[in-house]
């Protein structure tokens, strides 16, 4: 216990920096992942068999392989594929995280839209709404209620998922653990600190999200 407090006193800027890294990487991942995920979901639901198939394969491959493998793949592959961009390790890893999240988010969106009663589509069409108005005014407002809670869960999953980025020494919480452990050889103590930070972070997040969810269902 003393050692933990000692570590905190001496190294708290390292942990704070790690926390900041975890937060911004998660936020960027979920934000860009959602944008990309919407795109993939739109393709997945398109009438074109080819687009549909490509999006389906994209989702299946990303959900069917380990995320750590994907991180390695992009970390090694992206600089080779796009050398002129001179991507940093962090940028490669964030790209990989965004792409990984987009697959899960695309499925969340698709399921959320799929859960809207078929009768709603038919009724909207029967009064002569265009397909655009049908989506913007009838389907999406109802789908969002299904999508948001799952998207919030995805955010928490992402927060934990970013810890894998420490393998590549990208500055986030797990990397802070590794830095402090390397400097002090106090592995368990440093792990405990990082673990508590993760736990508190996700606890606060899930509480916040629950409040948000309740607001949304209340307006229904």
């Amino acid at each position, binding site marked *: 216990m003393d050692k933990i407090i000692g570590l905190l006193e001496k190294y708290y800027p390292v942990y704070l920096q790690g926390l900041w890294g975890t937060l911004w990487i998660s936020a960027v991942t979920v934000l860009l992942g959602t944008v990309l995920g919407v795109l993939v979901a739109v393709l997945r639901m398109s009438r074109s068999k080819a687009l549909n198939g490509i999006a389906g394969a994209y989702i299946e491959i990303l959900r069917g392989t380990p995320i750590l493998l994907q991180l390695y793949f992009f970390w090694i592959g992206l600089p080779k594929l796009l050398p002129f961009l001179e991507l940093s390790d962090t940028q490669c890893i964030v790209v990989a995280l965004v792409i990984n999240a987009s697959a899960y988010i695309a499925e969340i969106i698709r399921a959320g839209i799929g859960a809207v*009663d078929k*009768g*709603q589509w*038919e*009724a*909207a*069409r*029967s*009064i*002569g*709404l*265009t397909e655009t*108005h049908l989506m913007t*005014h*009838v389907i999406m*407002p*109802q789908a969002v209620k299904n999508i948001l809670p799952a998207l919030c869960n995805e955010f928490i999953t992402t927060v934990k998922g970013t810890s894998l980025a420490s393998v590549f020494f990208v500055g986030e919480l797990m990397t802070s653990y590794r830095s402090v452990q390397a400097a002090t050889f106090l592995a368990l103590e440093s792990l405990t600190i990082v673990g508590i930070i993760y736990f508190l972070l996700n606890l606060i997040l899930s509480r916040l999200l629950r409040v948000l969810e309740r607001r949304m269902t209340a307006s*229904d």
Partner: protein
Amino acid sequence: MTEEIIRTENLTKNFGSLEVLKGISTTIRRGEVVSIIGPSGGGKSTFLRCLNLLEEPSGGKVFFKGQDITDKKLDICKFRQSIGMVFQNFNVFPNMTVLENITLAPVLEKKVPKAQAREEAMALLRRVGLEDKAEEYPRKLSGGQKQRLAIVRALAMQPEVMLFDEPTSALDPEMVKEVLNVIMDLTRSGMTILIVTHEMGFAREVSDRVLFICDGVIKEEGSPDQIFTCPHDPSTIKFLSMVL
């Protein structure tokens, strides 16, 4: 002869290898009230849904006022605006108030000014006794009230024909009457109506013509008196003996 509103020519529909409609040809004229009766699974709903292309016909043609609406080049939304439809499960929009349910399509698709759309919606709501529910959300409504809302939502587009698919089948018995009364009122106003129903007494009372659809074809059609008192086709006789 009054103007024809809907005409089908040898309309067929398959779901995979299942032939649901096997060639339906009929004409609905302006002001006519036509009831469709028949056993469950006979293709009544599918027939109705082909008329506004909620289902794409596999073969044959559907004409709305002489225009073939199965033509891919046409804007089907425009036609659907003139063809109101009411479903068994109401399908009101839960994310909008009663008033918004009604004004949505007129404002978005017909560019009716909001104030005017609201006024017309209120007039419709008064007509079906729902004016005090205008600002409520549909979850606060009973089944009968939801179905009346669904009817005025369709009417707000000033359709030339109304399609009803078993509008009272999902209702508790005590609410059937209030919905049938609204439809009855519509028939008196001269609306062209095609209604699938199991309310045989109602069909007999309001219809100009009754179609008996079974196994994907019109097995028999005629005046309500003829169909209900002296049906000719053996399948009609069998069906009526079971439901009457």
